[in-house]
């Protein structure tokens, strides 16, 4: 394996480990030595990959946004109705919350809760554009095909993603009586009914 590929793999493993620790213990309680120890690497070497904890946190949100965006991109290219796409997007989001909870938890409990860490470098949508762009494309197609009602982007976006984020937050708090997947069907239908033409 070439050195460049090795470094890229190492970089990703740092991101994944830090993602788990930040999501589980919080941004401020997790230190660079904690992350380095879990990876069996020296603190100095970790700094060769990421020059600060803030930079690492910003790279993680970009990474999670890209992973989620890639999955929605696949849905966007499918030849199915907007109603079916909504179902698939909800399914992706909730399955990720179940199988890789750290991905969504990071967004809710680190990215949204520690804005000072992201103010310089991750302003607005800069670090989440991989995900936002795909949601924009979904809405654009759904309105162009006449299935969803034309309206301001954020009123539709807030309804869709705010709803999903809220459910995953409740899951994280341990207050949902049933597993998150139980809600896929009803929530997809609610979102479609709220947005349809």
């Amino acid at each position, binding site marked *: 394996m070439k050195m460049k590929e090795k470094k890229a793999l190492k970089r990703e493993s740092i991101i994944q480990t830090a993602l788990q620790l930040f999501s589980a213990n919080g941004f401020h309680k997790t230190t660079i030595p904690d992350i380095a120890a879990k990876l069996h690497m020296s603190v100095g070497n970790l700094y060769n990959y990421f020059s600060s904890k803030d930079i690492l946190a910003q790279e993680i949100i970009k990474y999670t946004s890209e992973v989620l965006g890639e999955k929605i991109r696949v849905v966007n290219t499918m030849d199915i109705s907007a109603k079916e796409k909504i179902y698939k997007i909800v399914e992706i989001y909730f399955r990720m919350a179940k199988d890789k909870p750290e991905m969504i938890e990071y967004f809710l409990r680190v990215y949204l809760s520690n804005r000072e860490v992201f103010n310089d470098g991750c*302003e*607005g*949508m*800069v670090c989440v*554009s*991989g995900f*936002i*762009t795909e949601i*924009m*494309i979904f*809405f*654009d*197609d*759904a*309105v*162009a095909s006449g299935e*969803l009602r*034309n*309206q*301001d*982007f*954020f009123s*539709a976006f807030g309804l869709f993603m705010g709803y999903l984020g809220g459910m995953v937050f409740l899951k994280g708090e341990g207050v949902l009586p049933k597993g998150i997947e139980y809600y896929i069907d009803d929530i997809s239908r609610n979102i479609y009914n709220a947005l349809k033409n």
Partner: protein
Amino acid sequence: MKDTVGRKLRLLWLQSITCNGNTHSFLNHPELFSLLSHFDLVHHPVLESGYSMEELTDKKIPCDILILEGSFIEEGFTKNGVEVSSLVAHYAQRAEYIVSAGTCATFGGIFKQKDPEKISGFCFDGEERTERYEHYAQKLISLPGCPIHPRWLSYVLLMIASGKKVALDSLHRPVELYGYTVHSGCTRNEYFEWKIDAKQFGLKEGCLFYEQGCQGPYTRGSCNKILWNDITSKTRVGTPCFGCTEPEFPKVGLFSTRTNMGIPATMPLGIPRRAYLTLTGVVKSFKIKRFSERLLEYDK
């Protein structure tokens, strides 16, 4: 500026179904008579010329360059009792160059709306080729625009008179004139880059693409490179580009941008939607103070 036997090239301007817009626009050329001095103007609808309307309809006029203005119908539009379609067929056969001046003559334009099935441009119906295309493609130069800029026509005429080849695209438009979009050279480009819309018509600040209907980013033309009256352009003064050079002109709702959940329904020419939206999401995350201020404070 002369042909092989040493005479000036003969210029015939023939109108079909038209509002005279291109004729009038051409009269605004600052060097009109100097330009025309290089040609033998055999017939023109409003300028003094060598042959009369009667001689035109008798099909007696010789010509080297045929300028066509207005859209076409096979039957039912006559001049002096003669079907214009037969006049066009006669002169187009004999001319060395055919210039379709304006969107009506090129693609059908405004007058096509009257009877979209029967009325078209000379060699194109929208973007589709008409039956005439095969006959005349070799000598055709398309100059769409509603109206055309007078300098677009003078560029073509002087290139022909100088014996130079005019490079054309697939719709026979000169690439020197239509290789650009109207967006190129617009003084509002910084606002486009930072996705800041104009708050109202006529302001110097803000881009007209997001709300006011501007079609400049996906319309081919040199309006912001070769300025109108040598001074300005529609978009510079705060009016949206109406896309008047395009085959599908005219569209409706020219003063508002069609959007799907706030996303422009038509992307800038050749820009993939995913690329455009990624860029938009990023730049909209920043607030640039200079772009929220007036360019000129008249009260100070």
